[in-house]
């Protein structure tokens, strides 16, 4: 019986087996990388459902309320504070008192039960982020949270991946602002950001902290 396959088919078949495995692994790996970085996994840009459709765009953009009116502890503590119901009621006992959208707020105030807000910026439990030091060193709210004044419903602007953190931790001069612009929305960095950044890094003693214990402990 004559040989059906050429002698080289032996080698080819061996190569193709190995190649298939390698290609599949490569494709799998690439897909995995894509998926892990995708907005699906990081939940970037995903609007989360909230008990009350609170609009930062309205309160910050139109009304011009300062971030710190509600996020009171952002300059003093690690946690920026989600305002107590009382803060909402400061105004909403006077305006929009009958709005059905605000019923959960009024219900909370009546019953002394917390409003259960869905957490939008949720770092893993092994990351210890501190708002106050960032704000005090000249990292703008906008740098991480985006144009909150243009967000009718809140979403996470940045990926919050570690490489995203490290980009700034390694090169703070790219992002820092003068301290008086930290809470400003729509801040336009000067053209010589790097020059100013380097000056601010020096003046404000901003450190390039990229060791593990900076955030993980």
């Amino acid at each position, binding site marked *: 019986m004559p040989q059906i396959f050429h002698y080289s088919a032996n080698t080819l078949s061996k190569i193709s087996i190995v190649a298939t495995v390698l290609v599949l692994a490569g494709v799998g790996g690439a897909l*995995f990388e894509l998926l892990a970085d995708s907005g699906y996994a990081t939940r970037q840009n995903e609007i989360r459902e909230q008990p009350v459709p609170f609009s930062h765009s309205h309160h910050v953009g139109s009304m011009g309320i300062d971030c710190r009116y509600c996020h009171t502890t952002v300059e003093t503590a690690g946690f920026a504070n989600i305002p*107590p119901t009382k803060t909402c009621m400061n105004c909403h006992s006077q305006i929009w008192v009958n709005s059905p959208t605000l019923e959960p707020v009024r219900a909370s105030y009546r019953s002394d039960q917390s409003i259960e807000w869905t957490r939008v910026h949720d770092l893993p439990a092994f990351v*210890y982020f501190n708002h106050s030091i960032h704000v005090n060193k000249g990292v703008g709210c906008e740098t991480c949270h985006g144009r909150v004044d243009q967000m009718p419903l809140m979403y996470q602007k940045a990926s919050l991946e570690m490489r995203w953190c490290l980009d700034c931790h390694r090169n703070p001069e790219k992002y820092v602002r003068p301290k008086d612009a930290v809470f400003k929305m729509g801040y336009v960095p000067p053209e010589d950001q790097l020059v100013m950044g380097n000056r601010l890094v020096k003046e404000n003693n901003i450190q390039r902290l990229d060791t593990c214990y900076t955030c993980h402990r």
Partner: protein
Amino acid sequence: MSENNVNLDLASIRARLDGARGRDYWRSLEEIADTEGFQDFLHREFPRQASEWEDVDGRRNFLKLMGASLALAGLGACTKQPTEVIMPYVNAPEGLIPGRPMFYATAFTLSGVATGVLMESHMGRPTKVEGNPQHPASLGATNAMIQASVLNLYDPDRSQTVSSLGEIRSYGSFLPVFRKALKVPEALPEEAPPPPIAGQKAASYRPPPPQPRDGKGLRILTETVTSPTLAAQLQDILKLYTGSKWIQFEPLGGHGERGGSQLAFGQYVNTVYHFDAANVVLSLDADFLGTGAAGVRYARDFASKRRVRGDRMEMSRFYAVETTPTHTGAKADHRISIKPSQMADFARAVAAAAGTGGAGGQAPVDSKWFNAMIKDLQAHRGAGIVIPGEHQSPEVHALAHAINGALGNSGNTVTYTDPIEPNPVDQLASLRELAADLDAGAVEVLVIIGGNPAFTAPPDLYFRDKLLKAKLRVRLGLYEDETSELCQWHIPETHPLETWSDARAYDGTVTIMQPLIAPLYQGHSAHELLAAFSDSPEKSGYDLVREYWQTQHAGADFEDWWKRSVHDGMVAGTALPAKTVTAKAPATQGAAPTSGGLEISFHPDPYIYDGRFANNGWLQELPRPMTRLTWDNAALVSPDTAKRLGLSGEDRVELKVQGHSVLAAVWINPGQPKDSIAVHMGYGRTRSGRAGNGAGFDAYPLRNSSNLTYAGGLELRKTGKTFKLAATQHHYLIDGGEQEAIEQKKRGVVRSASLSEYKQKPDFAQEMIEDPATKHLTIYPETFKYEGYAWGMTIDQTACVGCNACVTACQAENNIPVVGKTQVLNMREMHWIRVDRYYQGHPEEPEIHFQPVPCMQCENAPCELVCPVAATVHDQDGLNTMVYNRCVGTRYCSNNCPYKVRRFNFLLFQDWTTESIKLQRNPDVTVRSRGVMEKCTYCIQRISSAKITAEKEDRRVRDGEIVTACEAACPAQAITFGDINDPNSRVSKLKKEKLNYALLADLNTRPRTTYLASLRNPNPEIEAT
């Protein structure tokens, strides 16, 4: 492989120790005998079976799990984070900053005596205890029991509901039953309070005093009460219910002290010792640095007289005479063991020699030793202390008072005040009376508040049986324990952190205790239960305590005064004034029968005390300072006696005293007196909860009311069985090198000298390494400089009293799990800091040293080189960081660590399911899971927090601003942490001391943690033997 074996040849051990040149430190008898088992422990990071799969079809399971974990590791990375919610306050409390802990002053009480503390509270959850720097009994420090008390608050085994005969009831249904039994008239006083008239204060209205009621059958049994409010409530009840009686009973503390005070002074007095003024201290079996009421303060004062720095070359001298080795005795310059029956003889001999006028016989110790000691005490008249053991007999206490009087110490180093208890009584006599009343059927209503008398009462009172003769038995307790079992009603007691109350410290200082959290369960405090006797049965604890203090501090400024007192954690000016009393030497009570037979002495357990902390996993797993035992107590036998009786460690024996017998396991204890067995109380609980049940053996059945301190005529019978004990003495051993190297002093792990040796040769600690010149040798260029902060630590071995407060503090601060007895046997305990105990000299009278060992934070860290995934690396401040989320669990780092300070989560040791335990966790520290290596971080969360604060204020971190958990807890101030780049920091100055040395410096690891060598101050007259 037995860890305490000890069919060892004592004669050869002796010969070997005699042959040793220089100082020879050893950790156990096996080490000197150099047994195979010991070598195994030394050379292996983990014991042989530590990483073995424990179930039968191990390999198959392993493959399955490997496959699954590979798959899950990939998939896990692209799962979404689960959605979480944020629940803000409705009305935020004033002053609260989410994410920042708040500290509130309150107090911890043991046997009624308070130590002031500050509780750290995260968003309403108390998580960690710190000492109250203003409080005289704490001065900022704590001990292991205080540290662990927070775990009791969250103990899931606490009783949670009111119950009656096993059925769940409510407090509301209890009150009518109770008040009916008390025959409280149903109708309340007819006259309602008149409405307040303008200009007249409502409070000035007093309702008519209620009519006295019949209380002949009413008995209230409490623990020792120092709380002014509780005592006032009880006095009111005794007045209202004619014929009723209040009994106090505490199984361990105070019997000898109260009895001795009566004998010596004819009245009850409270004794306060001033160790910071004492040049010579003689302890008559006193564990004053340990479990005593003022142990924290005394350790601080004592250490302050032992610290040699720079040109200050003076130390106090401490003689200890003990019936079992304690960590207090371990600090003595001269320690001697005598049989318990000889203690009174010894005290009498000291009294006679001190000139009290009493007759003293021959002291049962070496006369040269004795005479030199007496000479020393007399040379320091007015600056010495003779302190009797808390559990010692009244006679020894009275003799000590007389000796202190004769030596002029009274009024100087020993002062007396009125008793801190409002109603001191002979507790044993009153318990006997109660037992008799019960037996006669004279008790209608018995209310038991706290304590656990059914478990702790002396066996000859047959209290358990007699208890059942009371018609209505009501129990208020934290746990449904052995006593609750015998009562018809059990009311859950609130934990001290859930309660308004008050208590006095050792010097009388009052703390008004405030709750940190609302009661987790349906708890009521003792104050609230006692209110049920009055006409306002549902008054809150807050009102009761506050109203009492309104009567004590009348005046317009009450509100200010109250707020300041609660805030400070102490009421200013309540320390009792010293008073002058004169002790008379007690009449000799006749020499104790010295049978020559075996004796047994009873001691409080160093951590679970009388059994009240039996269900506290932190305390159960804390190695006992001397024996290193965890999870069990044992019958402690001296090596000689063990040899004579043919006993080995872990032998199960029957101990029999006056007809009562118990089964116990033997532990060979160097330093134990011959022919005397020591047992610790509190173990062998049957209804304490999941941690305490079945741990150890119950020694209370051996302790008759006539023999509270010790008993003679002990019969010991071998059962031929053994019982596994989990001791940690061979765990994580540092390899001091070959014997020859040690003898040539090349690698002294422990370094010590006497004060005179130190004066002659101040740099003895430096000379003990191989070649000081190689200290900074490295083949790498010195590329990395720590230019910012460089954190470092020193540990003073002279000061360290071996109390383990640091270990528990670290456990609370860093979310360290408890692993259980089986896992301790596998050498898997997780403590980040351990206190190694070293012996030196002969096994019968060894000198004892303590060495706390946390991570050394080496600059040339051997662990970092071998990690395949860079999970342990250096940071810019020179810390050796451990990154949990990178760790894959190869354990190479741990294998390469010469100090053996890394701990691996072999199993899921953390409790991820019990809700109440989650509340205790420190939110600033990751809760580690299975398969992750962990170790001391120098409390990086505290460093970060201080650095952020300093950065925001644009300054450097100040010295002392960062206090690690171990440093904060240490009562002896042995641990100092700080920046070694700052030449003026405390730690830099200490590192310049000549006593400073690094462990295993010849390995060139350049550890950041260094040690100050241990100094002692032996009497030259005794030393020159």
